[in-house]
């Protein structure tokens, strides 16, 4: 794949530098230029350590927080508290109320759903419509697809195919991530594209899901987090007395 590829969901344990380093090294070897690693909400030191590990392997790091709120109020509170501390905010939607609130909030970047509990995957047409009016993306993790077998995998593929079709109908961006903590389960970007064909993503949209879409989120958020950002389309070009 010629484009820069990104894996926004790499479960590297920031406390275990050896495991994290192994995962980042593998990501670099497989051709990823950017990795997203979820951190605990109070983990400034770990972020510094991981940034150094990533720099050593020539990979860009995007700091990510995975919010798992029990109700919409908790989600709003968490967003107020953590939005400006992380480059990526993902919400694991455990209930329908949380899913709806997350889809209509412009501070949420990624909508993630329970991987194996199919009854709690709330990405339906109403959710997609809300997400399409905001900036949220649908994230699909490949981990369960690799680990499940038989009827469970069939059911997962059926669910994912339905969700992908809904997302495409409403122009909701899709991102495909690995979601793994074991380097043996990591796949090359082209292999991710091939695996995406199993749930109805053709080569073009699948390539966008591993490169263009994740990179666009990071670019947008880094711009917003920069001190020169004022509002979308407005930024400070120069400071000083002569301005």
């Amino acid at each position, binding site marked *: 794949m010629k484009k820069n590829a990104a894996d926004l969901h790499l479960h590297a344990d920031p406390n275990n530098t050896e495991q994290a380093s192994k995962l980042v090294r593998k990501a670099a070897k497989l051709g990823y230029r950017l990795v997203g690693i979820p951190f605990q909400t109070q983990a400034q030191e770990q972020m510094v350590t991981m940034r150094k590990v990533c720099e050593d392997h020539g990979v860009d790091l995007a700091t990510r927080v995975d919010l798992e709120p029990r109700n919409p109020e908790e989600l709003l509170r968490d967003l107020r508290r953590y939005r400006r501390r992380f480059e990526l905010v993902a919400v694991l939607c455990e209930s329908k109320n949380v899913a709806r609130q997350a889809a209509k909030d412009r501070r949420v970047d990624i909508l993630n759903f329970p991987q194996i509990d199919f009854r709690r995957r709330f990405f339906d047409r109403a959710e997609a419509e809300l997400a399409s009016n905001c900036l949220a993306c649908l994230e699909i993790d490949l981990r369960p697809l690799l680990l499940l077998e038989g009827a469970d995998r069939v059911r997962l593929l059926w669910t994912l195919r339905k969700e992908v079709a809904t997302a495409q109908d409403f122009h909701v961006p899709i991102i495909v991530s690995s979601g793994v903590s074991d380097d043996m389960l990591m796949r090359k970007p082209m292999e991710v594209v*091939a695996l995406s064909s199993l749930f109805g993503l053709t*080569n073009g949209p699948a390539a966008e899901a591993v490169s263009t879409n994740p990179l666009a989120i990071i670019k947008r958020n880094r711009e917003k987090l920069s001190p020169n950002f004022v509002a979308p389309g407005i930024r400070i070009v120069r400071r000083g007395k002569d301005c």
Partner: protein
Amino acid sequence: MKTVRRRYLALEVDSCEGVSSSEFMNVVWGAVTKLYGEVGASQTGLSLIDYDQQKKTAIVRVGHKALDMVRASLASITQMSNKPAAVHVLTVSGTIKALKKKAKL
């Protein structure tokens, strides 16, 4: 008569232990059959051309229409001889000569 267009894939076997060529092909066929069934597997035209147990590399041939199917099947391999393993595609080419040149095998 319609000519069959073929693609050759250079593969890298990522595993702690070496596996024999027959074991490798059993795993590959198993993955293709699991994902696409026996009818789908019969359409791939998959065959092993070369296997190097020391270097952990292999060359397989597939029909060009089945390339994506085989790629997806190879990516779905997670175990070989009950040990964690992965198979990565190094490069794809239309001839063995060009493939060896590209993959530096």
